[in-house]
């Protein structure tokens, strides 16, 4: 990404207070700014995104859909520069295709070598509670449900079958080979 100063449309300094946590110290918007970011509401999330945790690697820049932020920490403060990315749409589309391909490959590997680790009874009961809540007023397939938990295909099937037997959930429809579930 080549830097161009005209990409800069705003700057903000996020401070940190021991009682209140991160807060917006000041913000500056540059001329002709068409990009509206509600910095006041996002200050906390930016701070957490750049400085979250206590140690380890921190990001220098975060790319959002229509803007990116480059942040420079100074003691407990964080200076954020808001930028409008130019000419990177094509790269993003190509990278998205690559990511999609890798995900499919890895899912195939995972299906061949399922996680054989047994979850304890308490975890299974908690998963059941969550599945019922997820399916309340909503339809989801078994693979969709699986994405919310560290469970193999067979483990999630066992749980949904169990919930079906106890009339907590029911089959809503079938699309291709996937069964869609909903709460009773």
């Amino acid at each position, binding site marked *: 990404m080549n830097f161009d100063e005209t990409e800069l449309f705003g700057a903000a300094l996020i401070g940190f207070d021991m*009682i209140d946590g991160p807060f917006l110290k000041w913000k500056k918007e540059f001329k002709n700014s068409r990009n509206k970011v509600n910095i006041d*509401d996002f200050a906390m999330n930016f701070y957490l995104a750049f400085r*979250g945790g206590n140690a380890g690697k921190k990001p220098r820049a975060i790319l959002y859909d229509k803007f990116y932020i480059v942040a420079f920490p100074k003691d407990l403060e964080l200076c954020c520069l808001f930028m409008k990315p130019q000419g990177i749409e094509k790269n993003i589309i190509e990278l998205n295709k690559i990511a999609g391909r890798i995900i499919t490959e890895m899912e195939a590997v995972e299906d061949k070598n399922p996680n054989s680790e047994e979850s304890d009874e308490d975890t299974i009961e*908690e998963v059941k*509670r969550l599945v019922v*809540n*997820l399916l309340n007023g909503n339809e989801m397939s078994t693979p969709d449900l699986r994405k919310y938990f560290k469970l193999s295909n067979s483990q999630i099937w066992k749980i949904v079958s169990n919930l079906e037997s106890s009339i*907590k959930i029911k089959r809503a429809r079938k699309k291709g080979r996937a069964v869609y579930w909903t709460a*009773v």
Partner: protein
Amino acid sequence: MLSSETSDFRNLAKVSIVGHPAVGKTSMLKLLSENIIVKRYIPTQGFDLKTVKFNDMIFKIWDFGGQKSYLTYLDDYLIGSDIVIVVTDSSARNVLKSKALIERIKNIMGKECPIIVIANKQDLCESDGRMKQQLVEDILHVKTYGLTAIRASERMKLIEIIKKELNQVLIRKEVKEN
């Protein structure tokens, strides 16, 4: 009571919403901030913060992700709360689990900060046996209010609950000072 002359919170209150995953914390945040509530569950990563203005009051609402790894940070982020709302989905299992969470919050916050419980998903009491508000209160021994956070019509009810509880904090403080 919560006018500019009397409020200790200077009309700005930190409201923390805590609870286990998928109990409706973010739905409550959306209800208060009048955002559209989608039924598809998207877990809150870390926490979300929204400012809600209501008449002369400003609520800074912190919505904490309910996953175990996020609850580890509760001690740090609850500091300064004027009220803590523990949300349960009113299922027997979750109500019992919330007991331990309430004890932990009491230890963090001490006696000065009120803790209330929202027994959410009250619309499911008849269809799938969720506990009614009174039963949740009897089990948890904490003031409990029933709610269906996905109903936009319940926004005023929730705001009134928060205002009422904050008022009581002020009354207690005044009594103590006098």
